[in-house]
Structures are given as C-alpha cells and as structure tokens.
C-alpha cells in the first residue's frame, strides 16, 4: 500500500471513531472501548478489502463479515454508515426505542450486517457455517470475523475452531482484538486465555500476529492469509482498548460505559485534531 492510501484509511478510521463516540454518547450506554480497538481492522476490511456493494447488501457472492463480539456494534454501525450503507446521522439513534440500530446487531434490520450477534462465540460458529457453504457451492466469497480476546473464554469458540480446521476453511479470516481487557479487568486475571496464538496453532489454524493499529501490517497479514491453502486464518491483533481517545486508552472501565457530553466533546476534539494533522 502506498502512503496516500494509508493516509486515507487513517482519516476514515478517525471518522469511524468519531461515529462511535457520538453514537454511544447519544445512547447513554454501549461499548466504546472494544469498538475503538478494532476500528482500524474494520476500516481496512470495509474500505480496502471486502467485495461488497452498498446498493446490494445481500448480494449472494459478497464477502461476509461477522462481528462475533456483537457488543462492538458501535464500530460496525459506524463503519457501515461511513461506507454508505445507511445515513451517518442514524448513528445517533443507537439503542433508542424503534431505532433499527439495537445494542447488538440485527441482520434483518441493519443494511450490511451479515449475522445477528450478541451472545459471545456464536458468531464465529455461524461464520464457519457460511464458509463451509461457500466451499460446498464452489463460491469465491470469503468470511471475515471479528472476535474479542475475552470472548475466547467461551468454550464454543474452540468447538468452532476445531470445525473450521477440520473442514479446511481457508476462505475464513478471523481477527482477535487482543486488547487484553474485559469488563472485570485484565483478561489474564479474569480467566487467562493466553497464549492465544499458540492455542490457534494447536487447533490447526494459520496464525499471524500483528499491530492492530498499523495498516501496513493489517494489509500484509490479509494478503498472506489469501495465499494460505487448507487452513483457516487467525490474525491476532495486538491492540489498545479505547484507541484514538487519550483518556480511554488502556482503560477496562471504558468497555461498556458511554462518554458523557463533555467527554464526548473532548474525544471528538482530539479526533478532529488528529484528522487535521493528517491533512497537514
């Protein structure tokens, strides 16, 4: 990727982060921390990688994305809105009665959402099913999955991982947002899922580890994944919870708490400043 493209992705990511802040703040609840940590991955997928069509969100041959950590709906919605699936101003209806933007994503009501999620680990299983169907139907589409590191504590993740390797689903690329924090604290203290990469290697996956906030590394990992045959792909994304907003970074407390109006304004101001620096 050239520098111009990276610069453009960085700006897009900052705008998506602004959407996350605005939406959760307007809702008065929601999950900004893990949304901000996976924003760069989402930006890369939706603005560089995936074969999708905003005019035909359900076209059969599209690439799919499943947000297995469904509580990170804010980043999914903000990314989809930024990409043009629905108006950005609708983000401010997040979690409101009668809004189609529920606290967790609903595939029947939100254009561009490929699977309803919310109960952890079920998304990756559904993605395995989609990937297997792709093989069965000899289609070229790929299935991308966003997962949390805390989510790895769910046993179903490992059932799904076994199945993906068993059926050699190399059309599947999974991203674990390895920010190290879950609601009750550090993942290593709550229920340690480490070593994460080693576990997926042992389960028969092709595993790469990257800096989740470096577009060049995301790009290389996704390109590498395309070359692999016979194994599902895991990209372990070392990330910072709350990335992009100084007072949210590395704080477990921002897992499921929305910014108050003055915090929202500070966060938006920081992100605007960052965008201005990219423009300069």
């Amino acid at each position, binding site marked *: 990727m050239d520098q111009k493209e990276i610069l453009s992705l960085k700006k897009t990511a900052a705008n998506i982060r602004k959407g996350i802040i605005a939406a959760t703040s307007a809702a008065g609840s929601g999950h900004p921390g893990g949304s901000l940590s996976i924003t760069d991955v989402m930006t890369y997928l939706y603005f560089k990688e995936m074969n999708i069509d905003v005019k035909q969100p359900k076209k059969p041959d599209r690439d799919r994305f499943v947000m297995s950590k469904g509580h990170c709906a804010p980043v999914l919605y903000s990314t989809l809105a930024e990409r043009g699936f629905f108006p950005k101003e609708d983000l401010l209806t997040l979690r409101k009665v009668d809004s189609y933007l529920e606290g967790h994503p609903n595939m029947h009501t939100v254009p561009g959402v490929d*699977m309803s999620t919310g*109960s952890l680990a*079920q*998304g990756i*299983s*559904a993605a395995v099913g989609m990937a297997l*169907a792709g093989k069965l139907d000899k289609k070229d589409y790929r299935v991308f999955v966003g997962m949390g590191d805390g989510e790895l504590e769910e046993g*179903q993740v490992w059932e799904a991982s076994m*199945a993906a390797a068993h059926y050699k689903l190399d059309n599947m690329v999974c991203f674990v947002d390895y920010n190290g924090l879950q609601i009750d604290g550090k993942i290593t203290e709550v229920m340690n899922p480490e070593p994460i990469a080693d576990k997926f290697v042992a389960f028969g996956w092709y595993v790469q580890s990257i800096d989740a906030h470096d577009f060049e590394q995301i790009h290389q990992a996704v390109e590498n994944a395309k070359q692999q045959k016979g194994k599902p792909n895991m990209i372990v994304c070392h990330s910072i919870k709350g990335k992009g907003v100084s007072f949210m970074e590395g704080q477990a407390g921002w897992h499921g708490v929305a910014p108050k109006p003055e915090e929202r304004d500070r966060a938006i101001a920081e992100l605007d400043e960052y965008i201005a620096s990219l423009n300069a």
Partner: protein
Amino acid sequence: MVMQNQRKTYGDTLIELGKQNDRIVVLEADLGKSTMTFLFEQEFPDRHFEMGIAEANMVSFAAGLSLTGKIPFVNSFAVFSSGRTFDQIRQSVALGKLNVKIMGSSAGLSDFGDGATHQSVEDIAIMRALPNMTVIAPCDSIETKKAIKAITEYDGPVYVRLCRNDLPNIYPEDNEFVIGKPVVMREGKDITIFAMGAMVYEALVAADKLNEEGISAKVVNVSTLKPFDEEAIKKLSEGVKGIVTVEEHAEIGGLGSAVTYALRGIGTPIETISIGDKFGQSAENYRELLEHYGLTADNIIRKVKGLYK
C-alpha cells in the same frame, strides 16, 4: 398393527427429500447411527457434516449455513439438541427466524436405559417459550414422514421431537399434515382427550375401552405444540362433560399447560396427565417407565371416570 420407528422413518424421509432438494444439508453430533442420519450420509456424503460432540457450535453453524440458502437439519438426542444448545437456538436461530430444523431424537422417556440425563422431559416447554419457533411432536411414523416434508417446505425454525422406540402406526394415511392443525383421531361426544406423541395411541386404546362402558371419548392428536391453535382446541372442547390431556413431558409448559391456558374460563372440568414436575430415570424398557409415570390408557380411563364423579 404395524409397528414402525420414527427415527428410521425420519432417516428414510430425509433421503427422499434430499433427492428432490439439494439445499437440504444434515448435521450430526456423533450420534448418526442412533438419529439415523447415517442413512442420508450414505446417500449424500457431500451434504452430511459430522460436527463432533460439539452441539453448541453445530446449532450456530447451522444458522450460518441457512443464511446462504441451505436447509440444515441439526441432529442429536432431544435433551441435547434442545437443552444443551438452548442459547444457541435462541440467539443464533430463533431471534433471526432462520430456516434451521432442530431434531430432538430419543425424546421424552424413550431413551429408557440411559436415565434422567438422557431423557428430555422439558424440551417442549423450552422450545415453546421461544418466539418464532414451531414445535412438533408426531404421534407415529406416518405423521413423522408427513411432518418432515411439511417443515422442509416451511421457511423458519422448527423443533421436532421423535421417539426412540417403535410405535404403532395410527395416523390416517390420507390426512394432509398441516403445521398447527390438531387432528381428530376418533370422534366422541362425552369427553375430549388431547394427546401428543406416543400418548395418542394410549388415548385411542382408552377411548375403545371407555366406549365399551358407554362413554364416548373424542381423541385429538395435538402434534403441533406451537403455533398452538387455541380456537381449534376450544371448538373441540365444546359440549363435552370433561377434558383430559396426556403427554410424555413435564407438567410445566407442555400440552397440558397449553390446553388449560387455551380453555381458561370455560368451566368444563379438566384433568392433566404428565410426568409431573420430575426428571426421568432408568428402566429395563420403555413400557415400564410409561407405567411408572402413569402414561397409560388405564390411567387415562381412571382420569376420565374421575371427571364423572
């Protein structure tokens, strides 16, 4: 009387349907020789997927398959396919109204030897509680075949409960199976007996004996527990002196609950027969367990006579 096995009929029917519809895929959790999905596997190895002893993944995986247009049949013993996977059925399948068929094999007390851990006494209750879900308990092999065809044509989540043991064929061959519609198996004017699954046969035996004693009992096969046709249940209860429900299921949330709720306020005396608020247990055979829990024609007769006092 022809005895036939619902599991075997299900396995054969899947093959028949599989020939007509290549969207059908079958998922198995290491019980294929018991659930009889091995029959489909022999015929269509490319559309049968062994998912291992990992039922939770199997259900959410099926949801993913259905989103690509497949019609997945998910198989395990009823106690696992409805209970162990309840959250997966709720979140991945029912909430999105996805076209996944959940098969509950060896349901009720029919896995007599394995005991309480393997006997589903609450599957109907928990599946009925889910919005968007359709719940069916066929009474024999003839109805099983018709029901499997009907649910394949229906676009949405369905739970089907099947008995492990051979059952007498009693369903009218020429009757069209319609999801949601109770079937009058025997006309009668004094008493209405609502039964489901293996209990429909017991109800018919009871009706025969009652007839000899001058009591005319109507027997209704309520094989669809959801959607529940309250109007039909009310109509079939009109003009009788008493009503009895009988089910191989816990007293909470099954047929008895559904019928008494539908008939609230009518004033006609109602008796219910069920396993009660209990788990099952091991036994040497199925009959022994049915007798232990009072799930027999004789007990139905006792309840009917009790209504006359």
